[in-house]
């Protein structure tokens, strides 16, 4: 794959990451609590910006860490078996997203441990300092790890095949595209858009988001399997 195609693939994979909703849910709650606690607009903006910065940092760290691990394990030539395992993970989690991503009933409750969900709800309620908001941003990305593993793994496998300078650019591309959803909600809250409208939109479209995230992962898994595993295996015969 040439550099442009690799970066385009990383951007596309990052968009699937962007469709996952935990970070957006926590940001919506944080916005709601800070406005409800009569904080000034400047303070609200400072807290939600720190939160987004925390999520950015953790995304960058996770993708860098995965790339480093794969680089140490495989060098720049990823073995066929690693691609095949990655495809299985992507397909498996794609199906899991279709089946389990949102809990049944009203609201946008996600299929994460209820204890962790309560912890994030309580922390977003008690956050009054930008450092706490930054930590909350870090934590929310960790909480979403079970769903973003496929996108992180595939991006890391593509990134390590790039020349070293382009790997950094690839990392930035992944991080920026994966945060698009969060950045849109950040801009909406920052510009004073109604939180109830944001949450209503999220609730009304949750099944579509679930279907598109899971579907995109399944299509991606098949695509990578065909272009990487089958094509290379056929070429080697």
């Amino acid at each position: 794959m040439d550099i442009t195609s690799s970066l385009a693939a990383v951007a596309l994979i990052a968009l699937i990451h962007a469709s996952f909703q935990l970070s957006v849910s926590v940001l919506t709650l944080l916005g709601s609590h800070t406005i409800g606690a009569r904080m000034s607009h400047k303070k609200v903006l400072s807290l939600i910006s720190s939160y987004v910065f925390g999520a950015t940092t953790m995304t960058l760290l996770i993708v860098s860490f995965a790339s480093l691990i794969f680089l140490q394990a495989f060098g720049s030539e990823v073995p066929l078996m690693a691609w095949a395992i990655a495809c299985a993970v992507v397909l498996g989690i794609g199906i899991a997203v279709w089946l389990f991503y949102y809990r049944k009933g009203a609201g946008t409750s996600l299929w994460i441990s209820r204890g962790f969900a309560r912890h994030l709800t309580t922390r977003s309620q008690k956050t009054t300092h930008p450092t706490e908001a930054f930590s909350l941003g870090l934590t929310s990305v960790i909480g979403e790890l079970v769903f973003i593993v496929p996108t992180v793994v595939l991006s890391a496998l593509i990134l390590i095949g790039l020349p070293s300078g382009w790997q950094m650019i690839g990392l930035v591309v992944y991080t920026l595209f994966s945060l698009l959803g969060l950045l849109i909600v950040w801009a909406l809250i920052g510009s004073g858009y109604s939180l109830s409208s944001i949450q209503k939109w999220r609730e009304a479209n949750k099944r579509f988001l679930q279907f598109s995230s899971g579907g995109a992962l399944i299509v991606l898994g098949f695509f990578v399997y065909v272009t990487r595993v089958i094509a290379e295996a056929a070429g080697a015969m």
Partner: protein
Amino acid sequence: METGGTHIIKRHRRHGIEAFSKDKLQKSVVAACLSAGAHHGQAELVAKHVADAVEEWLEDRPEVTSSDLRLATAKQLKKYHADAAYLYEQHRMTI
């Protein structure tokens, strides 16, 4: 301010039971109204009406669960500010 003899049974056993607090309810309704874009004065007024109505509803109920209290509050809040009621209901269902 704690009013009446009503006890609130919390969702999780470890949080136990606590006496109903009108002040606490009023503050949570004010927060929901402000989050929904209401002005401070409007939020205070709506919260007072809602808290009064909920207090009246609790008069003949010695014990209610926190979920029932939340539903009753949201029902009253809906009469004054639908968006705030929606955010109030969604609080535990966002994540």
